[in-house]
């Protein structure tokens, strides 16, 4: 598999010098958590335009907590973080965010195109009219996820895989400088996964940065940077550097390696409560604090 989600230009890892001029995300000593309780501390990150970062860890490892901090839904517990040159949440029209499943998608009487149009709301404000360009972005987003023919379909008539495509089309239609997605391939079909990888590769080419939380080691290895989380920073670096059996062991608790294959992508990661093909039961890394409990939708 070619590394589609890696930037063409080699991206910098964590630099020693604090450089915010060309930074999409810049964090120093960042601690993230809920309601005063720290989940992960001492996070140092730099993500540049066109750069990609994969967050890898189990449910409850702090992936979603970090993601929510980056998009401004949770205040940082300690340390400093700048997103697009501002405090997180300061540039809504430049960030696209998607967090797993919206249960409401099933009951809201809205059509696919209405959901994708929501992507333009931050740029339009309360009453701004959709311009021709806005409509174009909406159409493009749907076309790139292969759901143009579903534009007028009610959301509640769609399958789980189709819903996921709609949410990703919404992300694309924002034309963001930073895309933050939590488990973008959860419940998606194989065709949708290919479209998503191509579309997000194109977003990187356009200069957008991407942060993804994923269980998928084979996908994570394609990113410029991989951050392994287990309620602490296990490792941060390029996929080939950090996706080693030892560190995956530290992250997930149990790892089965195919002895005939050197590729990091061939590691099988065991995980509780994840319905994907990588599932082998282990109970070591689960803790009571299920901050990421909704990681896997019960589609």
């Amino acid at each position, binding site marked *: 598999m070619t590394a589609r989600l890696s930037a063409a230009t080699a991206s910098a890892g964590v630099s020693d010098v604090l450089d915010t001029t060309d930074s999409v995300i810049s964090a120093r000593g960042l601690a993230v958590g809920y309601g005063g309780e720290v989940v992960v501390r001492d996070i140092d990150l730099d993500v540049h335009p066109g750069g990609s970062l994969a967050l890898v860890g189990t449910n409850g490892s702090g992936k979603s907590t970090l993601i*929510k901090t980056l*998009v*401004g*839904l949770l205040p940082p517990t300690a340390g400093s973080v700048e997103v697009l040159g501002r405090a997180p*949440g300061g540039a*809504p*029209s430049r*960030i696209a*965010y998607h*967090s797993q499943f*919206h249960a*409401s*998608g099933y*009951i*809201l*009487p*809205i*059509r696919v195109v*209405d*959901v994708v149009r*929501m992507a333009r*709301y*931050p740029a*339009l404000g*309360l*009453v701004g009219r959709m311009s021709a360009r806005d409509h174009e972005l909406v159409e493009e987003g749907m076309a790139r996820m292969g759901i143009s023919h579903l534009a007028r379909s*009610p959301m509640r008539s769609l399958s789980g895989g189709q819903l996921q495509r709609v949410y990703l089309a919404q992300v694309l239609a924002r034309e963001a400088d930073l895309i933050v997605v939590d488990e973008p391939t959860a419940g998606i079909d194989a065709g949708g996964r290919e479209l998503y990888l191509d579309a997000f590769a194109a977003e990187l080419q356009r200069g957008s940065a991407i942060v993804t939380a994923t269980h998928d080691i084979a996908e994570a290895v394609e990113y410029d940077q991989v951050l392994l989380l287990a309620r602490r920073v296990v490792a941060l670096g390029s996929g080939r550097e950090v996706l080693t059996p030892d560190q995956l062991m530290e992250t997930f608790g149990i790892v089965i390696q195919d002895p005939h294959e050197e590729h990091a992508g061939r590691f099988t990661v065991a995980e509780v409560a994840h319905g994907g093909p990588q599932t082998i039961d282990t109970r070591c890394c689960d803790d009571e604090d299920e901050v990421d409990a909704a990681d896997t939708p019960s589609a």
Partner: protein
Amino acid sequence: MEYLLDPFLNNAFMTRALLAGVLVSIACAVVGTFVVLRGLAFIGDALAHGVLPGIAAAILLGLPGMLGAAVGAIVMIGGVSLVTRRSRLSSDTAIGMLFVAMLALGVVMISASDAFQGDLLAILFGQILGTSWGQVTIMAAATVLVIIVSVLAARPFLLLSFDPEQADVAGFPSRRYHVLMLLLVALTVVVAFQTVGTLLVFGMLLAPAAAGALLAHRIGSMMVIAAVIGSASTYLGLLISYWFDYAAGATIVLVAVTAFFVVLALSNVRDAGRHVATTDASGETLS
């Protein structure tokens, strides 16, 4: 034909009642749509009952009931926001407690004064046949206000219904728009209690919008369907109560709720038919 129109043409109080009912139905359709979509039914119920002590206090002080209801609603919104944020209990429990307390307080206040025992029934079940032109005017103004605010805040309201996190990330603070939505519910309850009463206003808020949710594929059409069902229920309810001498407010709500169950039954039949068709066509059962 004269049975269907004459009651309204020959009696000014029936004309005003119909107008008031239609206006309330429109406001309830718009606001009730969001109540149904966001699962705010319980908060809406609490608001509808929370206004009771306010109304009682206003009557005791010789002030307009609507004014007291408005104060009661604002106190209730503040209380609901406080308990949902601070309480370690589930918000349902906290809100339930609050609304029982407000309801009981209202009844105690009314019972303490012999002067208006009869008013309790009027407050709880409405006095639509006693609607004045002044009240119709206030209802019209409130309905227009509800529509204007809903149009202006349509985007954040839609985002909020879709996913509150998306609203926040998109730069529309979910808490602010949630409170605005509660204020619209409160405004609607305050002007509607005159027609169907605080106990039944909740039915008008919920039943037509819920029926709309079953039929519509867009939020706008859901509101229109709800307004049509609400208005038709008002007309039919008034007509029935006129000819059979039933309590008007309760009859209107009964018709609206019946309409909901008819729609529910029909849509179940329709969905069952569609499910059979899909299963046959694909040759496999859909989960």
